[in-house]
């Protein structure tokens, strides 16, 4: 056993359907001499306490085993620990794994063994970290940026502040998690006539602003989703903590990119990337 490695298994992996997968995974890790202590998440067990205990026992690499939801359960505290983070996605959802260039299943053990480590930024909303984004799906909240100006959609819309990015419909939207900025994206709603009714639909274009610090405020309580966890309130303070998380990535990582990754593969394989550019988005009328 390699004492430097510790593995955090999500509780759904105790399902019998995953027995063979976990056995294959552990065999592969043994082959690479990467087998370590195992901690299992459970409903009434604190993930933070579990990981801190493993770190006290000498773990310097903490590997999250499960899916993106498992990652969400640990990312709010992992950046404050002096560890390198690994990720083995076993099943979906695994959009974050794709952004990190980590294949699903035993193939991820090869990524772990290669130890291609990147130090990335983490977002912070109030007192908790986030890896991917904070989003307010339909809101009239405004975003004050760097204490200098306010941005708001005039008729409501969605507001998202991204660090790494995430899945939007069938697309994966990537933000640069190594540039020392968060990316705020506001997609306003516009009225569209549908038969005899007017309905509000998102416009095709979104506002994109890079920021280090911002405050989301609303007169009414709003619900925000932070790394797939719902929080509600009137005010959310967001900021970036540059170079905060050491994470093991694969060759196909997308950390230095921005734009939309189009998902054409039947199994969700990312095959093409499209960089956002001003010239592509805007043309003058002739």
């Amino acid at each position, binding site marked *: 056993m390699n004492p430097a490695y510790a593995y955090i298994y999500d509780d759904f992996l105790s399902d019998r*359907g*995953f027995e*063979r*997968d976990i056995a*294959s*995974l552990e065999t592969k890790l043994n082959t690479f001499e990467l087998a370590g202590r195992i901690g299992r998440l459970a409903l009434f067990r604190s993930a933070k306490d579990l990981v801190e205990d493993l770190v006290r026992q000498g773990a310097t690499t903490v590997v999250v085993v499960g899916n993106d939801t498992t990652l969400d359960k640990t990312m709010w505290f992992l950046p404050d620990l002096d560890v390198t983070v690994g990720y083995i996605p*076993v*099943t*979906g959802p695994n959009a974050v794994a794709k952004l990190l*260039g980590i*294949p*699903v*299943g*035993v*193939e991820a053990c090869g990524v772990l063994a290669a130890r291609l480590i990147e130090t990335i930024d983490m977002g912070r909303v109030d007192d908790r970290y986030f890896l991917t984004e904070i989003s307010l799906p339909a809101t009239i909240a405004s975003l004050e940026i760097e204490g*200098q*100006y*306010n*941005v*708001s*959609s*005039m*008729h409501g819309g969605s507001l998202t502040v991204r660090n790494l990015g995430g899945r939007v419909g069938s697309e994966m939207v990537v933000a*640069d998690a190594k*540039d020392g*900025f968060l*990316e705020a994206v*506001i*997609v*306003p*709603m516009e009225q569209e006539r549908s038969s005899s009714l007017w309905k509000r639909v998102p*416009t095709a*274009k*979104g*506002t*994109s*602003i*890079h920021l280090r610090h911002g405050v989301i405020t609303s007169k009414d309580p709003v619900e925000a989703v932070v790394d797939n966890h719902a929080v509600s309130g009137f005010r959310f303070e967001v900021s970036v903590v540059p170079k905060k998380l050491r994470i093991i990535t*694969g*060759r*196909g*990582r*997308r*950390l*230095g*990119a*921005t734009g939309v990754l189009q998902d054409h*593969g039947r*199994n969700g394989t*990312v*095959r093409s*990337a499209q*960089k*956002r*550019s*001003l010239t592509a*988005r*805007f043309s*003058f*009328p002739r």
Partner: protein
Amino acid sequence: MSMFTSPKREDDMPEDHSFGGRPSPATVIAGGVRVEGDFTSQGDVLIEGEVHGNVTTTGLLTVGPQAKLKAGVKAEKAIIAGIIEGNLEVGSHLDIKSTASILGDITCQTASVESGATMDGRVEIGAKAAQPGQKHGAKAAASHDGKEDE
């Protein structure tokens, strides 16, 4: 449920540095979005919404045909197709499109103006405009007062 039996290969994906490394973040203010306050950027800026306050950028400012700015504007380069109510200071080239309407003084190094654009204010072309974020000491090479329709 399980995907271990059919692991996906991601080796055909290009590495991130193949399309990373942009010089500076680009900022977009889309239509239907309002900005209030002193908006400052180090990169290129595209505005299609509304801005009330001041706009300063060290890059290219593009104001779309639907955009409305009630703002003092400073930029290194600018392409204007929308409405600006406020003074416009451009460090190098200013491109005014036919749909543009500018109510305020204009300072720039060089300019091109399309037929149909309207301007109301002093125009100083060839002047050494202030760098964005600095006070400007313009040296007039040409100036026009009043409304101009080309």
